[in-house]
């Protein structure tokens, strides 16, 4: 990345404590336009906690977040979404009893006005049409847009979660284990999608346990271990083995720097 380019997202010395546990310990990170950053680490390394501070789920105890160059206070998930930060959560965060279209538009429903705006009802037709177009665009088949999420397969649910994030033309996409529930073909589609986002200059933060995926699509890899950032490597200049050594704590750049 050229130094002249301004980061879309920059976090500085973020700290999150839960009681006596420091889940995220002074982590700094920058993400530039058109870049895919892999965020890896063992279970409990603090990856999800870190991104949840960016998506407005948690409030940091210390540190600052800058978005598009400005310091921001993200106190609710809706704040993040309003800024253009879209997150696909590991458990997908879908309402199982609602249909695909209702989930894609959940929290941002399209409405019709009646009686000069006194009564506002859902514009169901518009939302269903838009959802159908979106799913066709993603090349995912769903029996009908009115099918409840609970009646869809893992891959179809994942597609709905992705479609929901894509629809709003995100400025930053955060994906927490997006290939978890998927078959091989569908995994390939998600990776293609990440590449497509990059080509559209939309940066992606990818959290994944699957080293193959991380090496297939990322430009940079950030490794966390016990709440700290222990390494940041250009993907082209590192290897599976080296990343795993950082993940298990055998190597630690932050400590080396402090010495």
């Amino acid at each position, binding site marked *: 990345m050229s130094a002249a380019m301004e980061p879309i997202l920059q976090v500085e010395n973020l700290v999150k404590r839960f009681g006596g546990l420091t889940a995220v310990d002074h982590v700094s990170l920058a993400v530039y336009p058109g870049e895919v950053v892999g965020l890896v680490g063992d279970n409990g390394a603090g990856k999800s906690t870190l991104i949840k501070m960016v*998506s407005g*789920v948690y409030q940091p105890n210390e540190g600052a977040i800058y978005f598009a160059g400005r310091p921001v206070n993200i106190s*609710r*998930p*809706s704040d993040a*979404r*309003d800024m253009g930060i879209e*997150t696909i*959560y590991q458990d*997908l*965060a*879908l*309402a*199982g*009893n*609602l249909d695909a279209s*209702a989930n894609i538009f*959940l*929290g*941002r*429903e399209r*409405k019709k006005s009646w009686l000069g705006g006194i009564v*506002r*009802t*859902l514009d*169901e037709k518009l939302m269903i049409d838009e959802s159908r177009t979106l799913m066709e665009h993603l090349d995912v088949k769903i029996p009908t847009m009115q099918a409840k999420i609970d*009646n869809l397969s893992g891959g179809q649910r994942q597609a709905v979660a992705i479609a929901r994030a894509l629809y709003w033309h995100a400025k930053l996409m955060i994906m927490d284990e997006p290939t978890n529930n998927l078959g091989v073909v569908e995994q390939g589609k998600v990776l293609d999608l990440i590449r497509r986002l990059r080509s559209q200059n939309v940066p992606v933060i990818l959290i994944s346990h699957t080293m193959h995926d991380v090496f297939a699509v990322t430009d940079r890899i950030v490794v966390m271990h016990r709440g700290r950032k222990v390494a940041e490597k250009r993907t082209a200049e590192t290897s599976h083995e080296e990343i795993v050594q950082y993940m298990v704590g055998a190597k630690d750049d932050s400590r080396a720097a402090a010495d």
Partner: protein
Amino acid sequence: MDISVAPSSSQNPWLRTLLHSDATRRLLAFAALIILIIFFSLRSEAFLRYNNVVGILLATSVNGILALGVTFVIITGGIDLSIGTVMAFSAVMSAVFLTEWNVPLALGVLGGIGTGALAGLINGIIISRMRVPPFIATLGMMYVAKGLALIFSDLRPIYFYEAPQFREISMGSVVGRFIPEYDIPNAVLILFGAAIIASILLSRTVFGRYTFALGSNEEATRLSGVNVKTWKTAVYMICGAFAGLGGVVMAARLNSAQPALGQGYELDAIAAVVIGGTSLSGGEGSIMGTIIGAFVMSVLTNGLRIMSVPQEWQIVVTGAILVLAVYLDIIRRRA
């Protein structure tokens, strides 16, 4: 073992989808109501007579209105045990406004509905902001409203002699004015009007969408940027407003506010909602189902009475039907 068993419907996705659809579930509740009506009309020719049908409609009105409101709460996965006594308290306040403060009729009615909405608002705040479980919060409100109803009424029924038009709200007949041979009481129209409003709210507005979303996955709803606390509070407030309306209709029907009448109504309303196919675990339900459920209960009571079944046995049968209805729904879902 037995290889001749019918193939499980899970092998037949089409049948499975059909069985699990909301339309099927409503159709089944409706079929149950029709079967009851056919059964009672075969057993007694008095059952389908005009006066008896009007009696059933009138008997459903208050329970139906309460059930409409609590449907929203139950779809969010919550419960409201206070609606019975909030209904009584709203009736009392309506009477206080009309007979002691001598406010105009419309204000007295709005005051009653507002009292219910206020109680619901307090329920909602205690549940969503203070995180007290709905069962406890509304159980507390059940006692509070009961006590307040007694306090404001001075332990006595309040009669509406000073507001003679008040009774017309329930017992007058707008329909009868145009078609004298069908003098259907206004209380019945209010029930159906309230049902139409509730139905639009639940299935056509953001409020209804979030009601389902809250009961389906509250955390996902929050992550989607929905202000969960505010919308949940609104759900309890709407439920309270319906209880307030129920109080007004009830008081107008009796031409008096009865402070001690109310406890137990919440359970009848919840039973109607459940018979109508709304799941207590949240995320599903319908207004149509609730209306059908309320009618199943009143048709049952009325039919058994016409068949001269003693009242104590009517209660026993109602309880058994409630459990049977939920059991049949569980079987349908497993299929």
